[in-house]
């Protein structure tokens, strides 16, 4: 065991899925023409005033309730002052002393070990605009479409000890916010961004080491690599007798290293103060009750229900509930035939997941809908299709066919369950492979598989494998 202990805290910026901005009525769509969604409030023309979007507050409360947090029924907006061209007001409206959500937790599972990770707080704030450094002669271009997009900044306790735990926490959070329908989770588009605070200390010491902050890590893979790199860098530095300086570092994925960006300004350098434009945000008991009543079934509860109601393995169930849309797809498929739940889970976690992954699609894009999958599985359950022929039908459905029985007819895939028909094929094979039959009879039982294969081949895969096995075994006696 290493003499060093790593301490990691994560700050995650979750873009809330509202239609309009947190303090203005401009749209929040991603990828629009520059500055076409930046109104007078967003570009900070003099005299404008922010008006709070109720939906952003509701989403923050949804999150708070889902992590068992304390909801502050009185929270305060503050100005965080700094200068950057993509922040035209010269301050970001955020929450400082009294955030809307405080003290919750998220349970993570790393290699079967459950750990509860504390969430210090989650506060509402506005996003900044975007600086475009390339493509302009000696100038920087500013696009303020993103300015004012609502963010929920979720700050963890320094409870994480390894990069694997950090990734597990992030994945859990990512799944949760999508589940709750408060964030689309699109990391490429920056809807879910992570900063990591990392420090190392001698295992025997109880005081935290100096931390470095790694900014804007935008994929789970990079989080793991960036943190791993940073831990090694700090340990090397300390073992050589150096010291870590408090600073912001940027992860460079191409070189797989972190680089110093600038000395981290002390927190009070932002000169936070309550925003005089925004009185305290008060939430009534009634509002909290309404939100609580509207919460969807959360992943853990749903997973447990899948295990008890449909008799799935916990592993299968966990995979299904990871994405709410996948879990919904599963339930839509098993609705009429709950007894086939295990088969349905296998198809979704196996064939469908693999194909979606290959083609970079999500479950809502699946050409095989719950209705079609349900029909296909009925045909497996009633013996019309075998495992292999079912895959062939599935492929046809994936390519756009819309009628399971039609595909079975067209391709002549109906499984042969008529024992007379199977028997005649078995006889053909036994007569055709006299040597192998002899080998079998003299004790080489391995050739059995070969003979089964021959029967299946002659039946073009349509013979019921179970019956083939039985018949062969009987005849070989």
């Amino acid at each position: 065991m290493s003499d060093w202990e790593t301490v990691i805290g994560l700050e995650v910026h979750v873009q809330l899925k509202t239609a309009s901005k947190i303090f203005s009525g401009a749209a929040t769509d991603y990828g629009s023409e520059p500055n076409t969604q930046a109104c007078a409030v967003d570009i900070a023309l003099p005299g404008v005033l922010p008006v709070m979007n109720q939906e952003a507050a509701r989403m923050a409360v949804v999150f708070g309730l889902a992590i068992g947090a304390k909801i502050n029924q009185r929270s305060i907006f503050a100005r965080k002052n700094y200068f950057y061209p993509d922040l035209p007001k010269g301050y970001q409206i955020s929450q400082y002393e009294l955030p809307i959500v405080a003290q919750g937790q998220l349970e993570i599972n790393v290699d079967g070990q459950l750990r509860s990770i504390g969430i210090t707080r989650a506060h509402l704030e506005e996003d900044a605009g975007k600086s475009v450094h390339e493509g302009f002669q000696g100038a920087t271009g500013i696009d303020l479409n993103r300015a004012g997009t609502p963010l929920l900044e979720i700050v963890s306790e320094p409870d994480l000890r390894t990069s694997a735990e950090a990734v597990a926490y992030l994945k859990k959070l990512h799944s949760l916010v999508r589940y709750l329908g408060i964030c689309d989770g699109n990391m490429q588009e920056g809807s879910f961004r992570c900063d990591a605070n990392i420090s190392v200390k001698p295992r025997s010491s109880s005081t935290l080491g100096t931390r470095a902050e790694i900014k804007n890590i935008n994929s789970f893979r990079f989080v793991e690599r960036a943190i791993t790199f940073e831990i090694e860098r700090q340990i090397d530095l300390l073992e050589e007798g150096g010291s870590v300086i408090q600073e912001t570092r940027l992860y460079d994925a191409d070189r797989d290293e972190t680089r110093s960006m600038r000395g981290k300004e002390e927190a009070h350098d932002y000169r936070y103060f309550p925003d005089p434009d925004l009185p305290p945000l008060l939430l009534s008991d009634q509002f909290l009750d309404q939100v609580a009543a509207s919460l969807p079934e959360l992943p853990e509860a749903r997973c447990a229900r899948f295990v008890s109601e449909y008799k799935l393995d916990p592993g299968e169930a966990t995979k299904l509930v990871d994405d709410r849309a996948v879990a919904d797809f599963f339930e839509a498929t098993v609705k009429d035939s709950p007894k086939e739940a295990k088969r349905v889970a296998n198809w979704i976690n196996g064939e469908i997941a693999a194909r979606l992954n290959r083609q970079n699609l999500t479950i809502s894009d699946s050409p095989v809908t719950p209705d079609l999958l349900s029909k296909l599985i009925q045909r497996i359950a009633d013996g019309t299709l075998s495992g292999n022929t079912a895959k062939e039908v599935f492929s046809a459905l994936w390519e756009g066919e819309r009628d399971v029985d039609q595909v079975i007819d067209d391709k002549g895939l109906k499984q042969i369950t008529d024992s007379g028909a199977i028997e005649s094929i078995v006889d053909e094979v036994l007569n055709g492979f006299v040597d192998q039959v002899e080998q079998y009879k003299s004790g080489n039982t391995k050739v059995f598989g070969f003979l089964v294969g021959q029967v299946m081949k002659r039946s073009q895969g349509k013979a019921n494998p179970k019956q083939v096995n039985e018949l062969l075994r009987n005849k070989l006696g």
Partner: protein
Amino acid sequence: MSLTPEDILKIAHLARLEVPEEESSDYARELSAILDFVEQMNEADTRDILPLSHPQDATLRMREDKINESDQREYYQSLAPETEGGHYLVPKVIE
């Protein structure tokens, strides 16, 4: 509470204000006097008093999540010193 001339220069830098070095001592004295004045508040017993976060006894009014702003880029950009391809241009931020 007493501010040093160095404090003044740091605060000025954070606020992007230009304060000539020779004036920093004057500002330090004047601002310290203001802070000392406010400091008297510490003598009051505030144990049972909710910190004031807004001078008015008001609560935040909220609006529905509706888009009610249309694209006025052309108008806003006619007020800007320099624009290109729909972007506002500023002096280059990084080299």
